[in-house]
């Protein structure tokens, strides 16, 4: 397998009035062709900002302050807006969290799809772009695609809209797809269908997928590799098997423990004590230290990232955790 995307020491900071928010702080990972990477973490851990940073689409006051996003020998963190728009929606595309809000309410579905095709392939005729759009809608399992082309977003259900957003993201056969919680707004049955569809398309087209989610069960099913984020940093990063079944970071362990098990009877689910600290008020040393059962004096200094048993972990207590 060859490398599709390499992120090196990426930092995305927001210079707000209340102080500097390090939403993404020094993260690195790679994605191979045909691979699915899952980024998991609680709300506010910096998952979505990581996704947007990959296509360098950060709203002010945020910006990428350091690091590189290497894609096909190009560093997306340092490209001009024009070059970036060529890549966005073409070679890399993104699916947003909320399908209700991600389609323009006053433009027909058809127009929104066709323009995506035309701006990336200026030589395509309108008829061809139309046909391609209808085919794509059919591929994502939208019933009566021809009719839907003339519809406006408010005439469609949430599930339909999400399929359209996915069709829009896939229409130019991107090499890399970033899906930011693509199924949170949908009900469970549709969730499964959509995830299955994305996995199938990724494997079929030999493209890569970055799946951003807080649902560790989804990640377990879908992903080849997993990066666990906490307060803007990656705390554990490795293969699905290693990270989920042999976690080395206390936070990952906690997350997995939170999942209900079928063979166990329990009145209360496990929860990690406390809440994730505000990015404006991080604890000294390891960010997880004040919630961590293993924490001691040593954790007053942020741990180095070490490679152990094939995955990267940032924790002083790796050796005590089995």
């Amino acid at each position: 397998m060859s490398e599709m995307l390499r992120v090196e020491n990426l930092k995305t900071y927001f210079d707000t009035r209340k102080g500097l928010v390090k939403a993404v702080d020094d993260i690195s990972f790679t994605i191979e062709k045909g691979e699915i990477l899952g980024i998991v973490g609680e709300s506010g851990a910096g998952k979505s900002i990581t996704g947007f940073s990959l296509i360098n689409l950060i709203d002010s006051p945020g910006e990428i302050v350091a690091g590189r996003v290497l894609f096909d020998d190009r560093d997306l963190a340092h490209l001009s807006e024009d070059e970036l728009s060529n890549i966005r929606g073409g070679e890399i595309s993104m699916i947003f969290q909320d399908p209700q809000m991600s389609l323009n309410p006053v433009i027909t579905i058809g127009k929104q799809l066709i323009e995506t095709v035309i701006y990336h392939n200026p030589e395509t005729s309108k008829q061809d772009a139309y046909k391609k759009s209808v085919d794509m809608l059919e591929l994502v399992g939208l019933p009566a695609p021809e009719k839907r082309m003339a519809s406006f977003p408010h005439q469609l259900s949430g599930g339909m809209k999400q399929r359209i957003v996915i069709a829009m993201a896939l229409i130019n056969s991107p090499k890399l797809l970033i899906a930011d919680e693509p199924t949170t707004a949908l009900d469970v049955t549709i969730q499964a269908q959509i995830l299955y569809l994305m996995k199938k398309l990724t494997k079929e087209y030999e493209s890569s997928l970055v799946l951003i989610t807080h649902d560790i069960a989804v990640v377990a099913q879908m992903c080849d590799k997993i990066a666990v984020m906490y307060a803007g940093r990656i705390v554990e990063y490795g293969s699905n098997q290693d990270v989920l079944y042999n976690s080395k970071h206390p936070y990952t362990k906690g997350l997995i423990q939170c999942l209900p098990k079928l063979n166990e009877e329990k009145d209360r689910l496990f929860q990690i004590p406390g809440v994730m600290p505000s990015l404006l008020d991080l604890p000294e040393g390891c960010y997880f230290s004040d919630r961590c059962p293993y924490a001691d004096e040593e954790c007053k200094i942020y741990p180095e990232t070490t490679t152990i048993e094939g995955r990267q972990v940032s924790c002083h207590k790796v050796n005590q955790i089995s």
Partner: protein
Amino acid sequence: MSVISFIVFFIMYKAGDPVELLLPPDATHQEVVQMRAYLGLDKPFTTQYAIFVKNALKGDIGNSYIYGQPAVDIVIERFPATLELSFLAMFFSVILGIPMGVIASVKPKAILSRSIMFFSLAGISIPVFWTGMVFVLICSVYLGILPSSGRGEVLYFTSAFTWDGIKHLIMPVITLTLFQLALIIRLTRTGMMEVLMQDYIKLAKAKGLPNRIVIYYHALKNTLIPVITVIGIQFGQLIAFTIVTETIFAWPGTGKLIIDSIQNLDRPVVVSYLLMVAFIFVIINFMVDVIYTFVDPRVRVK
């Protein structure tokens, strides 16, 4: 409109007796009574109103007490002058205001945006009569380049086709435009800033669309919805309230007519003017609704 007719009729009835203004102060009592009977003012209020409604339904609102001609004709005769002013003012406000608002919203910290916002703040806060008089002072009194009053040469109901007419138009139109322009700039800017934060704009960018398409197509189309509503309301207001501007520039439009007629207690003229304005408001609102269905698919009815 019938409610308006009643209210106006009643107020004018209560306001005073026009006969005293019409006749010279030394008129005899008999002349006064005769005049009153001639104008139909000797009957009680309800009878007067009943006669008015009966005639109005036939399209006759009565003759002006002053001019003796049908009141509706007088108002209609004056209307092109007012429409011309309002239309030009609205036209310039829209074609300048929307782009300026967009520019000010896209890069709010740029010097150009800041100067636009400063200008619009001034436009909103400075009263129309003051700008009008300052214009007259500078352009007519000191520089003597523009005429201070009248319409100039009129061709096809408007001054806009003759050079002399255009010279007369410049100052009143600018005076009227300033406030509207400022309002549209602010409205467009606020609307744009709101829309630019939406997810669908981010998605449009994530699709790789060029910035100008994102701003002038995806974002502006959404921003225009509230702007159109306000343009409609403002256009009606412009027509109805050019009074101040027309008075300053002695513009022979309906604004000046209504002021004169109120002073003379010329009831038929006032009533027909207000009915006309009400009618125009209805038409404009109807047009706004029609435009709405083109811009906002959510209000379209199957």
